[in-house]
């Protein structure tokens, strides 16, 4: 069975851990607990071409500092070893997290050229609090595939991981 390593990156408190918990365990916890380091989860997904195993690295949040060392710590660089794809997660209610995601994307493009990257605009259940025009802007971006997700309701979470699994499987 093919196995793919997917890393979740993004600013803190955007819902990376909640997305993984939703996808792997189908649960959601309203409490916010920050992730320090990394937590590794796995789940098998049945595709038309057969089963694949997704090894998901839920990484700690990136700081939106000016320097690269603040954005991507040395720990995070170690976690990226052997990565097949990256999910960049942003919180639609916080514009700063979208900027962090775009900076991470630029960094990945530079340091990990060719790695498939998708953007998840999370917390779609709070869409009334999103920055105006944010979704259209991100979705119209040609450089990055963008999904709107909600770890709370589960909207698009399964589809997004499956989409990535299919893409990785086909690529292989």
């Amino acid at each position, binding site marked *: 069975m093919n196995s793919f390593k997917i890393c979740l990156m993004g600013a803190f408190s955007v819902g990376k851990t909640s997305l993984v918990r939703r996808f792997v365990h189908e649960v959601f916890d309203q409490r916010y607990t920050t992730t320090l380091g*990394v937590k590794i989860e796995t789940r098998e997904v049945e595709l038309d071409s057969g089963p694949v195993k997704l*090894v998901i690295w839920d990484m700690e*949040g990136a700081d939106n500092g000016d320097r690269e060392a603040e954005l991507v710590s040395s*720990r995070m660089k*170690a976690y990226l070893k052997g990565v097949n794809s990256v999910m960049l997660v942003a919180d639609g209610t916080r514009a700063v997290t979208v900027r962090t995601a775009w900076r991470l994307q630029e960094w990945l493009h530079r340091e990990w050229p060719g790695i498939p990257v998708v953007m998840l605009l999370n917390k779609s259940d709070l869409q009334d609090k999103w920055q105006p025009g944010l979704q259209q802007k991100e979705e119209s971006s040609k450089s990055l595939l963008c999904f709107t997700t909600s770890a709370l309701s589960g909207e698009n979470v399964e589809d997004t991981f499956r989409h990535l699994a299919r893409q990785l499987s086909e690529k292989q």
Partner: protein
Amino acid sequence: MSYADASTNKLGLAVLKNARYLVAVVDKHGLVKMLECPGLPWCINGLRVGRQLPESLQAIVDICDESTSTQLFPYVQISDDVHTDVHVLSNGSEAQLILHDVNVAYEGAHEFQQKAHDVSLLLEQQAELNRLLEEKRAEADAANRAKSRFIATMSNEFRSPISSIMAHADALHAERRDAREPAAIQRASWYLLTLLENLLEQARMEEDERKLDLSNVEIPPMLSDMRQLFGNQARSRGLMLKVDNPDQASLVRADEIRLHQVLVNLLSNAMRYTHEGEISLLCRRQGDAIEFCVADTGKGIDEGDLERIFEPFTRINPTGEGSAGLGLTVSRKLVEAMQGELTVQSKTGDGSTFSFSLPIPAKDQLKTIENLEGLSVLLVEDDVDVREMYRIWMEDWGAHVRTVPSCDLAVAEFENDPVDLILTDLFLADGNGVELLTLLRKTRPGLATVLCSSSDSIETYLGRDGAVVDAFICKPVSAKRLESALQTAIRLAKSV
């Protein structure tokens, strides 16, 4: 010491419990071949010799290359309460893992990070609220500016007809000095103009623009106006109005309309809040300045309200009649703009006194009087009433006046028979006064020019052609102000 050895040895168990790491060796299929120090409290469930490596650790081993040095993965969460640094050394056929317990360090760092993130989220929320607040404030400011522009536009629109009423009342009054009606129209017009100017001034303050037309203002006629304006009102209310100028002060450096506006505001206020006794307007010399004092025997103002009364739309006594709450705000700003300071002294039950001082004109500000006798003037004004009034005034001063209502006719008239001075309105049906003056000045460089408008924001229209305007006069135009503007224009034209 192996796990089997240690677990059967009491001393070994004690050592293992205090150890902060464990070592595991796995084959290339992930089968655990050997464990060292595995009996720790944080030891991973399922990590046993002969079993498969737990998935999270297997995921790490899978991505490690063959290497002679260890590869480090810090702060890996192995289970809910176990965090380790994972060191991997792989030679292809087997891998050695060293799991270093970092729970203590992790707990401290995690608690710190959790608090830092909580604070960051609060700061972000605060910043977002500030942004929204700023947005709302900008919206409110824009709405306020729109309102102010509307008030300014409407006030300017009102100026022309009031100007006409005042001018014709002046003429009637000149003809029939003993008739009451023209004087009543004059007073009512001045009062209406003051209310209008208050509104306009408030709008200007919000737009942060104020234009002054400083000149040497004659004090006796101004005091006489006030006596006339408020005398009847005081008598009808059983009050005594005293207007006094003991030093026979004659001139003050001020904007005539603004000074008039301030005095009307102060006297109106005094009249509004005084029910018995007297109201006085005192004018006296104080060194190089003239001091104006408006005092009343009204109910006075609480000490705590003395500054509040200068705030816009503030009425200490809400039952005060006919007050928009703008008079004192505007008056203070106007006096400040004329280089003075409006102050108040008051005690509850003991009346109030409002005072301000304005400078006496310096010697070089005293103008020589130009003779208007025989001056040829072309008057361009599309409002027939205003045009006739200006014509009558100027002819009274001995000028020869020709009048036209438009730019085209003005050019034709000027080409036919040039004049000494052009007096034109800014806005005309077929063009604007500045363009007209520019054109005619080219034909005759020594031509004296006066521009008149109901708008006092003329910079937009003047542009680079500002130099073609010798004197500007803002409506409403009194005979005295027009005469002063004509004299300024003639003097400037002569000096070129």
